[in-house]
């Protein structure tokens, strides 16, 4: 394999770039870059490009969607306007991003959608799962290009609808089982089991917001070590 390929700082490329291995971009590119190895976008680089590579590190400016097969890292000082997707994404403080970010296993940006997070956040049988759009596991199953399922609630809804969703989403998690969830806090499931299972599904009608005495711990909480 040749030495490190580089698009130098003063160079402008307009067109498609394909790399079998690694590529470093310090100049300007307008057009798609697809690398099978690592793609490094230097600090002064200006890209109006769709990027895809095995590993991508961005220190410069990119207008376009970025997809990495393994790891995507945006370093401080980077600016990206576009959608980001990779199994592992790192965004350092100081990186500026505007776009949709999708972590977790993904093959192509178009299909990518919260699949990992859908299962990550939801230990399957957990009845205490907070309301989640019922469509989510199904949306992930489709090779759809959509990024956000329409019914996803941005904010919480009334208790009645939460309960209704829990029931229907609980039914769907049974069918979801798409892939082994990425490391998920297991403690949460055991937490759920401790609670009275019935309390979940039949939340009473009283809608008054419950404001806990902040600062006070329940007896259960004291089980954990106090210091943090």
């Amino acid at each position, binding site marked *: 394999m040749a030495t490190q390929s580089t698009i130098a700082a003063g160079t402008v490329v307009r067109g498609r770039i394909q790399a079998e291995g690694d590529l470093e971009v310090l100049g300007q590119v307008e057009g798609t870059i697809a690398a099978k190895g690592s793609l490094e976008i230097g600090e002064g680089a200006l890209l109006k490009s769709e990027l895809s590579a095995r590993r991508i590190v961005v220190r410069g400016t990119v207008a376009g969607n970025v997809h990495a097969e393994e*790891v995507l890292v945006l370093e401080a000082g980077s600016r990206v306007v576009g959608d980001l997707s990779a199994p592992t994404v790192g965004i350092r403080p100081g990186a500026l991003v505007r776009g949709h970010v999708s972590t977790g296993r993904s093959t192509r940006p178009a299909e990518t959608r919260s699949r990992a997070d859908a299962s990550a956040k939801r230990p399957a049988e957990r009845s205490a799962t907070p309301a989640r759009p019922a469509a989510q596991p199904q949306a992930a199953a489709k090779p759809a290009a959509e990024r956000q399922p329409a019914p996803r609630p941005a904010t919480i809804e009334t208790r009645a609808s939460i309960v209704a969703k829990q029931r229907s989403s609980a039914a769907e998690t049974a069918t979801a089982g798409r892939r082994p969830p990425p490391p998920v806090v297991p403690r949460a499931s055991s937490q759920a089991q401790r609670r009275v299972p019935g309390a979940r599904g039949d939340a009473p009608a009283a809608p008054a917001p419950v*404001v806990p005495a902040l600062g006070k711990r329940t007896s259960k909480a004291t089980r954990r070590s106090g210091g*943090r």
Partner: protein
Amino acid sequence: MGRGSAGTRPGGASPAVLGQGLRVVGRVRGEGDLRIEAEIEGDVTVGGALHLDEPARVTGSVVAETVVVAGQLEGDVTAKASVAITASGRVHGTVKAPEVSLEEGGGLDGRIDADVELPETIA
């Protein structure tokens, strides 16, 4: 750690804690810092630093001065200063803050909307 205080106070001695095992359905408000280890269904709005520990499971919008998500959040997060998602954090929702960081291993499925100005040549 915060214990015995009735509510959060700005610049208070220690942050309030919604401990593990607690389940809150409804809005949570505070003026100071808050650490959540509990399960919350409802919006959380605090004036200071909000820390969602690893066991935290929050469904609802979250607003604070700074937010650290080490647990799971289903909902939007808005911060005046910064949002940090740690390696154990999982966020499904929009993230709005001047500074947003995501540790490798952390999960995010949603938009980040920082104020990004692109140079003319590639805008």
